C-alpha cells in the first residue's frame, strides 16, 4: 500500500497561496497546486472541467508529486489530436530539462463536488492498472474561492480494482466483493510542503496582511451555495430513484421467471415419473437456460456511483453547514457584544 504524503505542515491559515512542494532540493514543486489553480482560472469556467497530468516519484512510503501539466483543451476542429502523443512529448521535454517525469496520476477540477462519475472511474482504473501508485487529485475551485483550499486525492480501493478488472458489475459480483459506495474510493491524506524559504515568505505575508484580506472566509451568506448543492443532490436522488425502479422491475421479472422455471421442472418430473411407471423412456433433458432466458440485469455500478456521489454531496453539505453554523454563532456573539 502506498501513502501519499505531500509532505510538510500547512501554513496556519491554509490560504490558496500555499504550494505543494516536495523536500527534494532540485524541484520547483511549489508549482503543483498553483498550476492546477491557474489552469482552472484560465480555462475552466462554470461547470466545465479541466484535467491534467501529475508527475512525481515514490519516496519510501510516500508519493511525492513534484510537477504537473495540463491537458490541452479540446475543440471540435482538432479531433485528430493525439493525447497520448502529446503526453509522451511533454514528458520527454520535461526529462530534457531534468524535471521529474514519472507519471503518477492526474488531476481534475470539479463543480460543486460532482466528480464521482463513470468517466472518472474508468480513467482512474486505467491509470491505476498501468501505474500502481496513481492518484487523482480533485480540485474544487468554488470552495477554494470561498476561502479554504479544497484539494483531495483519491484512489480506487483494491476491491473495486478487482471488480473493474473482471468487469463484473452485477449484483452478485458487487456483493461478493462487498463493495459499497463508501469503500469504492479511498482518500489519501495530502500534505503540502513548501521549501523553507517560501514558508518564511508566507509567514511574513501573513503578518503583513490586514484582516480585510481574510474576510472572504467570514462570508455569512450561504443560501446560494446550499441551494446549488441541494439542486444537484436532488438530481442525483431522482436518478437513484429511477435506478431503483429499474432494478425493482428486474428482480420482479426474474422472480416471476424463476417461478415459471420451477413449475416447468416440476411438470417435467411428474411426467417423467408417469412415463416411468408406464415403462416408457423419460423425456430428454432440455436446456433450461435456453427455454428461460434470464432478463438482462441492470448494471449496478451506476447506482453505486450515484450513491457515492450523493455521499460526497452530503459530506460537502455537512461540512459547509457546520462551518457556517460556527460562523453564524460567532457573528451572533459579535453582534451581542456590539449592542
Amino acid at each position, binding site marked *: 500500500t502506498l501513502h501519499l504524503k505531500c509532505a510538510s505542515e500547512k501554513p496556519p491559515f491554509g490560504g490558496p497561496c500555499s504550494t505543494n512542494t516536495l523536500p527534494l532540493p532540485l524541484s520547483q514543486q511549489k508549482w503543483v497546486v498553483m498550476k492546477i489553480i491557474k489552469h482552472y482560472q484560465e480555462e475552466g469556467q462554470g461547470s466545465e472541467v479541466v484535467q491534467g497530468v501529475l508527475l512525481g516519484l515514490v519516496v519510501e512510503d510516500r508519493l511525492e508529486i513534484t510537477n504537473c501539466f495540463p491537458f490541452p483543451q479540446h475543440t471540435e476542429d482538432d479531433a485528430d489530436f493525439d493525447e497520448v502523443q502529446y503526453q509522451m512529448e511533454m514528458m520527454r521535454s520535461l526529462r530534457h530539462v531534468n524535471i521529474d517525469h514519472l507519471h503518477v496520476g492526474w488531476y481534475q477540477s470539479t463543480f460543486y463536488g460532482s466528480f464521482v462519475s463513470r468517466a472518472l472511474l474508468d480513467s482512474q482504473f486505467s491509470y491505476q492498472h498501468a501505474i500502481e501508485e496513481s492518484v487523482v487529485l480533485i480540485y474544487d475551485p468554488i470552495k477554494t474561492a470561498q476561502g479554504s483550499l479544497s484539494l483531495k486525492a483519491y484512489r480506487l480501493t483494491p476491491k473495486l480494482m478487482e471488480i473493474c478488472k473482471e468487469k463484473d458489475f452485477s449484483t452478485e459480483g458487487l456483493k461478493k466483493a462487498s463493495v459499497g459506495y463508501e469503500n469504492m474510493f479511498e482518500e489519501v491524506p495530502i500534505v503540502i510542503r513548501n521549501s523553507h524559504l517560501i514558508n518564511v515568505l508566507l509567514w511574513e505575508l501573513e503578518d503583513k496582511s490586514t484582516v480585510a484580506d481574510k474576510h472572504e472566509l467570514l462570508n455569512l451568506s450561504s*443560501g446560494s451555495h*446550499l*441551494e446549488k448543492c*441541494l*439542486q444537484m*443532490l*436532488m438530481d442525483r*436522488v*431522482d436518478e*437513484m*430513484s429511477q435506478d*431503483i*425502479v429499474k*432494478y*425493482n422491475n428486474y*428482480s*420482479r421479472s426474474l*422472480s416471476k421467471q424463476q417461478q415459471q422455471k420451477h413449475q416447468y421442472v416440476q411438470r417435467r418430473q411428474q411426467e417423467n415419473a408417469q412415463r416411468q411407471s408406464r415403462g416408457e423412456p423419460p423425456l430428454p433433458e432440455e436446456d433450461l437456460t435456453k427455454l428461460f432466458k434470464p432478463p438482462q440485469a441492470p448494471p449496478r455500478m451506476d447506482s453505486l456511483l450515484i450513491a457515492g456521489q450523493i455521499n460526497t454531496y452530503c459530506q460537502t453539505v455537512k461540512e459547509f453547514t457546520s462551518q457556517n453554523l460556527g460562523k453564524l454563532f460567532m457573528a451572533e456573539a459579535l453582534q451581542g457584544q456590539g449592542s
Partner: protein
Amino acid sequence: MSRFFATGSDSESEESSSAEEITPKATGTAFNKNLLLSDDEEDTKRVVRSAKDKRFEELTNLIKTIRNAMKIRDMAKCLEEFEQLCRAFLKSKAIVDKEGVPPFYIRLLADLEDYLNQLWEDKEGKKKMNKNNAKALSSLRQKIRKYNRDFETEIANYKENPEQSAEEEEEKEEAESGSYSESEDDGEGVTAKSFMKKKPAAEPAPEASKFLKGAADDESESDDDDDDEIWGSDSTDSGSESEDNEGNAASLALAFLKKLRRSKRKERAEEEAEEEGLEQEGGEWEKVKGGVPLVKEKPKMFAKGTEINIPVVVKKLNEILQARGKKGTDRAAQIELLHALAAISEENNLGQGIMVKIKFNIIASLYDYNPNLATFMKPDMWKKCLDCIDELLDILFENSNIFIGENIAEDSESLAVSDQPFRVRGCILTLVERMDEEFTKIMQNTDPHSQEYVDNLKDEGRVCNIIDRLLQYLENKGSTEEVCRVYLRRIMHTYYKFDYKTHRRCMGIQGESKSEQDQEESEGEDSAIIMDRLCKFIYAKDRTDRIRTCAILCHIYHHALHSRWYQARDLMLMSHLQDNIQHADPPVQILYNRTMVQLGICAFRQGMIKDAHNALLDIQSSGRAKELLGQGLLMRNMQERNAEQEKIEKRRQVPFHMHINLELLECVYLVSAMLLEIPYMAAHEFDARRRMISKQFHHQLRVGERQPLLGPPESMREHVVAASKAMKMGDWRTCHSFIINEKMNSKVWDLFPEAQRVREMLVRKIQEESLRTYLFTYSSVYDSISMETLAEMFQLELPTVHSIISKMIINEELMASLDQPTQTVVMHRTEPTSLQNMALQLAEKLGGLVENNERVFDLKQGVYGSYFNRDQKGGYQQKQGYQRDQKGGYQQKQGYRGGYRSQNQSSY
C-alpha cells in the same frame, strides 16, 4: 303501360307487375335484361297499393316458395326463405298489429314445424341428406321453435281445427281479390282456385312470345300495337275480374279506360316517330311500362266528355303516383302533371278533400325531386314547395271539417263532398318537418359569405311563419305528440336568436324613430315567454326523450343567450344532461356543446369567471371546438374518415347563421383562464408539482415565449398573452390596455349585446386579479403595505381592497394581518425561502426513494407487493409461514421417528 288504366283495384296493379316480371325475362339482350330486372324488382315494391295488400302479398310469396322447398326437401332454401319471411313479417308489423296475425302465416308456421319435426324423426332420411341440408335442417328447427313461441296460442288454435282456419283464409283471400292466388302462377299453391288456374296457363305464354317478337323488331310500331292488343285483352280480363270484386267504380273505370284507349292509340302513332329517334332502348322500355308516355300526353289527361268526378281523379292520381320512384320517370313532369290535376279538380269543383290530397302528393313529389339525400332543393322548387304548403294550410284553415292523418287508411278516406267531414290520408307535420330540413340543407349548401345566403335566409321568415301556422292548426287538432314535435320545430327556430326588441325594452331605450315595422315587432310575444311556454309544454307532455332533451338544451341556450345565467345554470344542473349526453345521437350532442359554450359565455358576461372557464374547458381543451360545435370539419387524413363519413358529418353541420363565433369563444376562454391562472401561478411559484388550471392557456404562453422577436400583439391570442405577462408583474394598466382596445373591441367585445357592461366587468376583474398577483409575487419584499397605496395603485376602492386582502388572509393564501388603525397590511413572512422550498422538495424526493427502496426490500423478503399493501400481504406471508411451520412439524415428526428408531436401535 296502358293496362295501368285498368287499375280498378290494387290487386290489378300487382297482377301487372307480376306480369312485368315475366316479360323482360323473355326478351332483350342480356345486359338490358339484367338492368331491367333489377329495376322491375324495385317497381314491384314501389307500386302504390294499400300497405296491407302489399305486405301480405310479400308474405304469401315467400310462404309459397317455402312450401315448394318443403316439397323437394331443400332445407337450405327453406331456411333462407324462412329468414326472409321473418324479416318481411317484422316489416309488416304495423299492419299485423292492426289486422291481427294473418292465418296463412300461422298455418305455415305450424306446418313447417310439424314438417321439420317429421324430418327430424326420420333418422333414415336424415342420414341420406347431404351435409348442407342437414345443417340447415337443424338450424331451421331451432329457429322455428324459438320463433313459434311468440305465436303459441294462434298455432294451438290452428292445430285444433286446421280445416276451419284454412277455409277462412281461402275465403278471405278470395274476398280480398285474387292477388295471392294469382301470383301463385307457377304451380300448386296453397289455395289454387279453379278460375285462377286457367289464367297462369293462358297469360304468360303468349305474352312472352309476343314480347320476344317485340324485341326482335323493337323499332317497329307494330310492337306497340301488339302490345296494346295484349294489354287490351288483358285488361278486359282483369276488368271482368274486378267486376266480380269491385263495385260500380271499377266498371265505370273500365268504360273510361276503353274509350281512352282509342284516343290514345291514335296519338301514339303520331308521336311514335319522333320519340323513337329520341329515346334509347331503355327509354323505350319505360315507355312501354308507362310512366313517361303518360306525361307526354299531359294536356289530355282525361278524355273529352269524361265525367270528371272524385273516383276518376283519385284513380288518375294513383296512376301518376305509380311512376314515382321509378328510374326513368321525369320528376319535373310529374309535378307538372299533379299541378294540372289539381287545376282540373278545382275547375270541376270537386271539393277540398281531393285538393288536399293532391296537394299532399305535390309536396311529396317536390321532395322526391332530388334523388339523394345530400343534394339540396333548387330555389324555384323551394319556392314552389313553400307556396304549396302555404296553400295547403290555407285550405286546412278554411275548412275545419277536413281530417288528415297518417293513420287514415287509403280505403277509408272520404273525399267526396258530403255532410261527412273529409278524411284524407297524409301528414302535414311530416311535410313541414321535411321542409324545415330542406331549408337547413339549403343553408348548409350555400356559401355563407354570398348575397345568395342572405337571400335564402330571408325565407327563414316564411319557414317560421309556416311553422307558426301549423302550430296553431295542430294545437286545435293534433295529438299531443304532434304538438310536441311542432313545438320543437318552433323552438329550434327561436332559441338561437337574440331578442333585441325585448333587450331594448329592458334597457329602457326606446327606438326614437318608431317605424311601423318596429311597432309591429313589439306587438309580438317575447321570445322568452314563447320559449318558456313551448318548453314547459314539452317537459310535461313529451314521451320521447329526444324531443325533451332538445327542448331543454334550447331553453338553456336561450336563457344563456339572454344573460339569464341562474335560470340557465339551474336548468342545466337539474336536467342532469352532463351525465348521459354521451349516449345521445351526434346532432343532440352538437346542440349540447353549443349550449355549454353559450352557457360559458353567459357566465363570463356575468363575471362568473370560474364558471365560464369550467363550462368552456371541455370544448376548448380538445382543440376541436370547430368540429364539436358542428361549425366545420377539421382537416384530417383519409384514414380517420372516409368519404362516406365525411358526407354524414357534413350533413350535421349547423347553418352559418346559427354559428357561435369561435374567436369570441376562444377569447372568452383565454381571458377567463388568464384571470384564474396568473394569480394561481404567482401563489404557487415554488410548488414542486404545480398543476395547471388550463393547459391551453399555458400552451399559448409557451408559444408566446418561443417567439424570437416580440413585436406588438396582432392577433387576439397575442393580445391575451401580452396581457398575461403584464398581469404577472401586477401591471394592471398595461394588461387592461392589451385586453380592451380598438382591435379587441372590434374582434371580440363588440359582439356582445351589452358590450359596455362586459368591458366594465373585465376592467374590474383585471384590477382585482392584478392586485392579488401583485401581493403574491411581491409580498416577500414588503414588511407592510398601506392599503390606501394599494387602492391607488390598482384604482380600486378601499373597501374592495380590504375585502380582497381579507379573503386572501382567510384562505391562507397570504401570510399577513391587517392593522386596522393604520390601514396597513403587515406581512408575517412565514413563506418558506427558496432554500427551504428546495429542502422540502428534496425531502419529498427522498420519501419517494425510500418507498422505492422498500419495494426492493419487500421483493427480497418474498413479498410480492408494494410497501403500502404490506398489511394485506402480511397475512399471506403469515400463511406461508404457517405452512412452513407445518412442514417443519412434519419433518420434526420424521426426525422424531428416526430418533425413535435410533433409540430402538440403540436399546437393542
